């Protein structure tokens, strides 16, 4: 065995973009391979969970984990890799904040299964078969992971050492993080490896006073190329979003949708956005304000929590069945944080 460090990569509820982003460090991937033996990376090379289970605890130096926790298998892998890794990094927005998969927290497990397996236009399922955790066949019992009602972030599942934001993280930032980890120049555990400024700070657009009578969707307007998009009535999340991408989207006329997550000091991304957006509305009449908001922002959760619903204060929508007094043991669970 070489004395190189050991690196593991894993994906849970994710789109695969983060895996590709790792490869986008281009030829530097060879430097990564020089520094680390890659012991586990299911997307790219063969490797068995059982081999990881057999490794001594803390024998993996670095694990880059992308994706949220949607089912019991992903939680099992998160716990396993937490045990085996010295440094566990929540890699990308899905692991950090839940990201797009976390938007499914607007619905319950039953609603999701119903739509995906029965109601969606492309579903062809005349018998209405739904996935079961256990299926008996003549040869024995088959198992599937248990699909959770709520998507959790990696940090809500196990202790995470560092967060690398972005959907996906930019290759330069990935490289910065790897260098920081290799050289031991790391911020305190639990922190986000990244800038502490906002996308607005990197954005070349000119800012004046923001006063809005009406919000516009991107398809309703060809924006002025110089002026701040928010001043033109387009909801731009640059204000609350951590810098790291170089303000890619507003530079080409598309609003920042917040993929780099909350800037340092922002506890709840959506709340910060709501504050910012509310304060640009130019009206003192409650009815007019309601109208501007309801017409201009038809999907507030998708607008303010596109990447961070699972990570937010509320984590998910109110589930049916609330309103009844909690059973005793449930009450204890709810009050103990």
């Amino acid at each position, binding site marked *: 065995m070489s004395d190189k460090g050991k690196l593991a990569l894993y994906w849970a509820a994710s789109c695969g973009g983060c895996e590709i982003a790792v490869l986008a460090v281009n030829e530097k991937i060879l430097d990564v391979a020089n520094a680390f033996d890659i012991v586990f990376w299911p997307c790219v090379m063969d490797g068995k969970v059982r081999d990881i289970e057999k490794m001594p605890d803390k024998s993996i130096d670095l694990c880059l984990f992308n994706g949220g926790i949607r089912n019991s298998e992903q939680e*099992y892998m998160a716990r396993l890799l937490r045990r085996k890794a010295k440094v566990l990094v929540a890699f990308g927005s899905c692991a950090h904040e839940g990201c797009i998969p976390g938007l499914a927290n607007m619905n319950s497990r039953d609603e999701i299964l119903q739509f995906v397996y029965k109601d969606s236009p492309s579903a062809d399922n005349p018998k209405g078969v739904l996935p079961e955790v256990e299926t008996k066949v003549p040869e024995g019992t088959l198992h599937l992971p*248990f699909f959770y009602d709520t998507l959790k972030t990696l940090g809500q599942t196990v202790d995470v050492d560092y967060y690398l934001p972005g959907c996906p993280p930019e290759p330069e930032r990935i490289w910065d993080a790897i260098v920081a980890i290799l050289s031991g120049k790391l911020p305190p555990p639990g922190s986000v490896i990244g800038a502490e400024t906002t996308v607005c700070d990197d954005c070349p657009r000119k800012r004046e006073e923001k006063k809005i009578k009406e919000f516009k969707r991107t398809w309703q307007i060809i924006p002025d190329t110089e002026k701040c998009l928010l001043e033109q009535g387009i909801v731009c999340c640059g204000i609350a979003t951590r810098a790291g991408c170089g303000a890619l989207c507003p530079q080409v006329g598309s609003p920042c949708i917040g993929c780099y997550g909350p800037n340092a000091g922002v506890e709840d991304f959506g709340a910060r956005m709501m504050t910012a957006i509310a304060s640009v509305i130019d009206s003192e009449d409650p009815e007019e304000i309601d109208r501007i*908001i309801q017409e201009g922002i038809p999907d507030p959760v998708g607008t*303010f929590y596109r990447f961070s619903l699972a990570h937010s*204060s509320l984590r998910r929508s109110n589930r049916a069945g*609330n309103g009844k*007094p909690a059973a005793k043991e449930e009450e204890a669970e709810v009050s103990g944080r």
Partner: protein
Amino acid sequence: MSDGTFEPKIVGFLCNWCSYRAADLAGSSRVKYPPNVRIIRVMCSGRVDPTFALKAFELGADGVLLAGCHPGECHYLEQNYKAMRRFSMLKHTLRAMKLEEERFQLLWASAAEGNRFAEHVAKMTEEVRKLGPLSWRRNWIEKGLDDKEIEKFLKEHEEAMEVPAR
């Protein structure tokens, strides 16, 4: 709650200059109203960030009341208009999160309106009482199912392995 009666927990953010004084007046003039509002005094309703309300719900509030000076009468001139816009924005979002309307309310009450404050609290308390407890955290607790399911993996893997997983 255990004996079947439910007392709603309502967190009230009251501005120092009007609504807090209204509550004070209600108290000193012995107006009777339900004791369900836990009052947090803020300098201005405009200081109330949506984060405050979200935190309150997250930590177990059944309702949140935001109260400030009447529009046009803000001690800091225009800040309660900010509160108005933020309220509308947050309300819109909370609606999409399937939170019942009655659980998040806005009240304008001047320092002289002890009665108005008391009446509103009484009304809101009844409305929230009818809805029942919110216990937001219950929304994301899988009722212990996840641990049971994960145990199954360990078992399966242990059975198939020569070395135990832990």
